[in-house]
Each structure stands twice: as C-alpha cells, then as structure tokens.
C-alpha cells in the first residue's frame, strides 16, 4: 500500500506495509534517524514527532492512518518556538547521553507554540510523557523557561 504525506514540508509517497509504525518508516525507510526508538509502547516519548504541530508518539502511529498527514521531525523542526528551544538547550547544556533529546525538543516546542509562558505545572503536564533516563529534567525545565523568555524578546 502506498501513502502520501508531507514530512518536514516535503511531499513523500511511502510504499510499505500499512501496519508499520511511523517510527520505523522514518528510521528505516527514510533513514531519518533523529527520531528515536525507546520503548515502542508510547511510554517514553523518544519517538515524538509533530502532526500539524501536535506532539505524537510515532511508535504507536501507523502508516495506514497517515494519508495526507503533515508531519515534522527533529530534522525539520523550525520556527520561533523551535529556535528558542534549541538555543536554550545549547545554552544550558541540557543533554547528557542525548538519546531522549529529540523527543524532548519536539515536546517542548509544541508546548511553547501553544503556551508561550508555561508554568511549572504546564511543564509537568506537557513533558511527563518524555522520559529522560539521565534525568536531565531540572535543565529541561530551566531551558523551557529560558526559551519562553527568548521568544518574548
């Protein structure tokens, strides 16, 4: 079966088993490896991508449901919120092993696009699905606040 969708602004036609999770379409078919495999059961957020700007878990999103979808991955994320987030990430040296960070950046970007001045509770709610085994949470929180300031400036 072939599915036509947009990834990072580029139209793509994917010919693969419709039951294939988007995660593996991105990583194996398209060799876009920025989106990570962490759990496969929507429990860790390492595979987060945007669908119309909303964060989704690509490991539990199947190709069959993606006809016409407009997706953004870490390789293509841009705009004011994303730039502020990535700049804050670099400024505060958020990543340790880094394996979760593509997902963290996308989750934080979606949060700020929706809620430009998030409270700590907003951050807890938006980011609780994104596990960081290196526990960089304190810096992620700080970096989201910093990114919010950058967006205002």
């Amino acid at each position, binding site marked *: 079966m072939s599915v036509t969708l947009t990834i990072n602004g580029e139209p793509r036609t994917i010919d693969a088993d419709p039951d294939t999770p988007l995660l593996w379409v991105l990583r*194996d078919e398209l060799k876009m490896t*920025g989106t990570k*495999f962490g*759990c*496969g059961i929507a*429990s860790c957020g390492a595979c987060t991508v945007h669908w119309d700007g909303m964060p989704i878990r690509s490991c539990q999103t199947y190709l069959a449901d993606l006809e016409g979808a407009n997706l953004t991955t870490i390789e293509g994320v841009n705009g004011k919120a994303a730039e502020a987030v990535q700049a804050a990430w670099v400024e505060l040296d958020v990543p340790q092993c880094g394996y979760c960070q593509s997902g963290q950046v996308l989750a934080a970007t979606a949060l700020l696009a929706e809620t430009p001045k998030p409270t700590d509770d907003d951050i807890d709610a938006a980011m609780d699905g994104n596990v960081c*085994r290196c*526990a*960089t*949470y304190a810096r992620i929180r700080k970096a989201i606040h910093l990114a919010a300031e950058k967006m205002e400036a």
Partner: protein
Amino acid sequence: MLHLLQNALKAAQPSRRTFLKMSAGTVGGLIIAAKLPNTAQAAAQDGDFIQPFVHIRPDNTVVVLSKHLDKGQGVNTGLATLVADELDASWDQVTTEFAPSNPQVYANTLFGVQGTGGSTAIPNSFMQYRQAGAAAKAMLVAAAAQQWGVAADSISVSQGIVSDNAGHSATLGELAGLAAQQDIPSEPVLKTPDQWVYIGKSFPRVDTKNKSTGAPNTYTMDVHKDGMLVAVLARPPRFGGKPVSFDDTATRQVAGVVDVIQVPTGVAVLATSTWPAIQGAQTLSVEWDDSTAEMRSTTEIMAEMQDMVTKSGVNVRRDGDPEAALASADRVIEVDYEFPFLAHGAMEPLDIVMTFDGEKAEIWTASQIQTIDHNVASATLGIPFENVSINTLWAGGSFGRRAQGDAHPVAEAALITKALHEKGQSGVPVKVVWTREHDTAGGYYRPMSAHKVRVGLDADGNVTAWSHRMAAKSIVKGTPFEAFLMKDGVDHNMTEGAHDTTYAFPVFEMDQHFAETPVPVLWWRSVGHTHSAYVVETMVDRIARETGKDPVAYRLELLKDDPRKANVLKLAAEKAGWDQPVAEGRHRGVAVHKSFGSYVAEIAEISMRDDGTIKVEKVTCAVDCGIPINPDNIKAQIEGGIGYGLGAVLRNEITLTDGIVDQQNFDTYAPLRMSDMPEIDIHIVPSTEAPMGIGEPGTPPIGPAVANAIAAARKEWITVLPMTRHGLV
C-alpha cells in the same frame, strides 16, 4: 562462554604489566611516544599533526581522541578540556572522536585494559591528556621557531594562535605539518593551576548541538550499512534457558524476514529492517530447555539470602570482638534490609552492528570495555586480534550496562555473522537490536541483596558495636574481573561504602555471603554503594534519632577523622538551613557518602500528600570531587545521579515469578518523570586535590536522604525497597 572470558583476561595481562610500569612514573613518555596505528601514520603525510590523543588538521581543527566511552557523563568534553588547556587551543576549534580499540595505546591506566567505568575516566586521564596537550604545544612552538628563525622561548600560544614578539603569528593548523616533524618531548612542561584557562571553568559540551538537533550517526541505533540486515532475537523467558528447536513457519511469512538463525542466547530473526525483525521474533515459536535455568521466584531467592545473613560469612573487616560487645550492650538495634534487582534502563536499548567476511570483523557499537569486546570478537570468530576493529559510538546511556565482562552482545553478533558467513552471506552487515522488553527482562541487573545490621549501644546511647552482614550474588566472582577485583576470596565491590566506612565505631564487623543464581548481575551506577550507603546512612540516622541526637551533629561527631566528608556535610547543612525549622508540611533527611573518591552530602526535603504518598521537593547537595574540572558538568552529573537513584528507590524493582521476569517495559518498570524531579541546589567545594569521578557519586546518598526524611515525617523506617511497596509512591 568461559573460554571467551579467559581469553579476554589473557589479553589483559600484558597491558596490566604496562600499567604497573606506568605507575612507576613513565606515563608521559610512554604514551606520547607510543607507536601509532598504521592508518594514522599513513594519514600523517599531508600537513596533519597526528599523535595518539591529539590530531591537528590543516583546516585548524583540533581533534581530541577519547579513549573512553561517552555515555552522557561528558567525558569527551572533559578530555577535550585537558588537551585544549595545555595546548592553548581556542575552544571553538576543538572536537572529539572516539579512539580505536588498542590497549597498548589507549588502556585505562587504572584498569590495564581499554575501558570506562567506576568513575575513573578523568582520574586516569588527568595527567595523560594534559601531557598530550602540552607535548603538542611544545612541538608547535618548536615548529614556529624553526619556520620563523626565532628562539622558542620568544613564542607564546594563546587561544589557538602561535605568535612571537617580532610580529609573526600562525594558527595551530598552519603549523601542524611542521610540528609533526619535531621531536616529541619526553617530559612536557605542564601548566600550574593558576595558568589554566579552561580547567575549573564551565563551558559548553562538545556534543550538545548534535544531541539537540537529532544529528545522524551519533548512536549505534542510527548506523546503517548497505545491505544491512537487522536481527531481533526471541530470547529465553528464563535466565539460563537455552533454545532447543523452533518453528519459523509464521515468521517466514512476515514480509522482510530473510533468515532465522539459532544461537546459544536465542533465535535470531534477520530482516531487511527493524519492524519485520521485531514482528518475526514475536511470531517465532521456540522450545526452550530450562533444565539449568532459574525457576525460582525472587521471594524465594530473597528468603535464601535472608537466611544467609543470620550467620557469619566471609569476613571483610573486623575490629575487636563484635559478638562480645553486642552481648554486653545496654541495648541492640537489629534491622534487616532488602534491596531488589534493578535494570539499568538506559534510554538506548542495547545494539551492535557487525560485519565478518571470514577473515576480518568490524564492529560499530558504544563499546565500554573495548579490550574485552575486541577479545571476545576475536575468540568467537577464531581470528587474530588485529583482524578485528571497533568503532566506538556515543552511547544513549549505560549506567554500567554496557560494561559486561562477557561482552555478550558482541559474542552474539559474532555468532550471527559467522553463521551468515558459513551460509555464503559473507560480510553482510548485521545490526542486532534489543527491544525495550529485552533490555528490561534481559538480566545483568544490580544484584538483589539482603542485609542484617546489629548495633550495640551503651546506656548513654554511644555505639559499642556495629555488625553488618550482607548476601548477594557477586558481580565479579567467576568473571574476568575476578582476578583484578577479588582479593583473598573477598569481593570488595559488594560491600564498598560499608566495610570502609569512616564513621568511628569502636568495634566493627562486615561479612559477606555469596548467593548463587543464574540471573546475571552487573554494575549499576555506583555499584555496591547503591545499597551500602542506604544501609549505613539510614542506620546512623536511626541511632541519632533514637538517642535524641541531631542527625547532622551526630554524624559530625563520628567523622572527626574524615574532614572532607565532614566538610561537605556541614556545607550542605548550612545551605539547606538545617539549623532552622523546616517549612510547614515539609520534612528533611540527610545522608553523606564517599564513593569513587568523591564526597557528596545530600539533604532531601519532602512533603507528604493526603493519600500518604511523598513528593521529594528539593535536594540540597554539597560535593567535593577534588579539582572541579568543569563545574557545570559536575552539576549535571549530580543532578542526573540524584534523579537516577531517586527513580529507583521510589519505584523500581525487577521481580521473578517462577523464574520469569514480571517487568517488561517502562509501563511496569516505571522511570522517574519530570513531575517527580525535585529542585536541586548544588554546591561544589573548591579543591586542589586530584580530580575524582563524578558520574556515580551523586546517586548513593539520595535514597537514604529520602528515607531519613520519611522517618522524620512519620517515624517509619523504610528497610525494604522500593518505596512503592509501602504506599509512599
């Protein structure tokens, strides 16, 4: 498997002797002058400066070769700091690459083999990488002197620019080729601490940008080779189980599956990409032989260990006569502790890419002990050591999981590629991917353990005797590490942090018992300290509270002979406002512990919710790790170490029911999340002592600090972990 281990050990021997020689004071000369791999020498033709630890390219890039695995602890940044400082490079021009596997050049000087662990990366590299940077600088200066016809002592280097007072100036890259032809100084002059420009300052990590933008080819999981097959295995449901036969009718119908290969560790499904390999492994029907497998539940294993600690075991340390002192004590506090198996749960599941063409093998993986991985590959494939090459990649976490003594992922991948070779598929690259379920239920756990502590007190509440026994499966007994890490039948890893406590007790005893189980066990961030700190620090707190003493003041009384430990404790207490009443609804607990040469005190402030669960609100921390090379990275490691330890004590345990692991993924082995993370306030003690490890020491104190805060809140001592068992989470 045993012969592989012996082989790995054999290879370690020559380098161990080298280590002894190096300890005698010849590190600099030996390493600087070390023979380079042929490829590096060949590359040295065209204006490159190539030395084992430093490459300077004509484009003015300074590449620092990391002999260690960076698994998030920031070691590549740390090593780059040491070189850049002595070399006076500009930080912008510095990058890092992982060194090839070569124990002659890149051994961890504290291990004798190439490998990373035990928070040794900076301690064993501190002089070596500075010397490498200083030697490179001396050679650049000599090159400039030759080119400009001036005296070497009129030349200085600053921020990557070599210049003299006659107006000459050049970049490091411009001088690299000529510098490569200069004599290597056998004893390069190192800077004095007041001359350091990077060491001791916080500046950006070398890997942040790539890791914040999803850069390709960072992790093993991202490696792709032409014609590569992905292997996912059906793995034995019980530890020690072996595959007997399989039925792959359904598996072969999965589009993309190309082969099914049985190996001792399971049955590998090979497919053209990951998803069909996962599906294929799930649909495989395998008959397992459980005749030598662990069939017990963890409750039975724990009962056996609890029984062990009722008796004396292998003695680790004894001062005085504990039984007599306990018998004559005014009262005895006796406490039993239980700690569960823990999985490491690194974010990147285990993975490895390998090719084997019948003669040569190449590996791409986040290799943590390259020399063992290298030897196991060579022994499994029956090819010479030099026919194996290892490309080390960044690790998406390890926490000890990738530092196996049996290199089981390498052995497994080697057997799969060997089988392919024998089937005429020679040289086909194979990526073996572990699923999260394999990673969680796959063993190599922090050992579960039972402890019994008996403390005798006199009528004034002074400790007259301290007796501590523990039982666990040893991590090192029966592995290549035994020769290095066991002495006189004692595994010091098991009781580290307990047998060597510096609390002054007049009579002291520490015994250990070796429990046996086919469940493989391994180091888990801070190893023995994960349980020893919990036992010692909750016991000391209990004695303080039961004898009406302040927990900080009482510890300070016992730490008269350990000023560095006392110092971090005082600092944390001061910063946490320990002498002021805690805010309404909050409760505080303290713990202080030394591990891997570094001292860490943590004060946890918790609140109790109406439903009896706790929230750790804030942790105030003081750390003395010797010279703080990069304070911001020290803070990052302490933050991470606290979070990692906290998640485990709150929620994590691996349990077995009739030998089968009950937890499979992050839904049942629940990781710490954003909303669990406390505010963390870290204070670093300025120091001129040798720099020590920082990847692990943040972890041990958090469990007991939280437990002691719970005791302050509701007079209940948590002696069985995790805290989910007590309705606290």
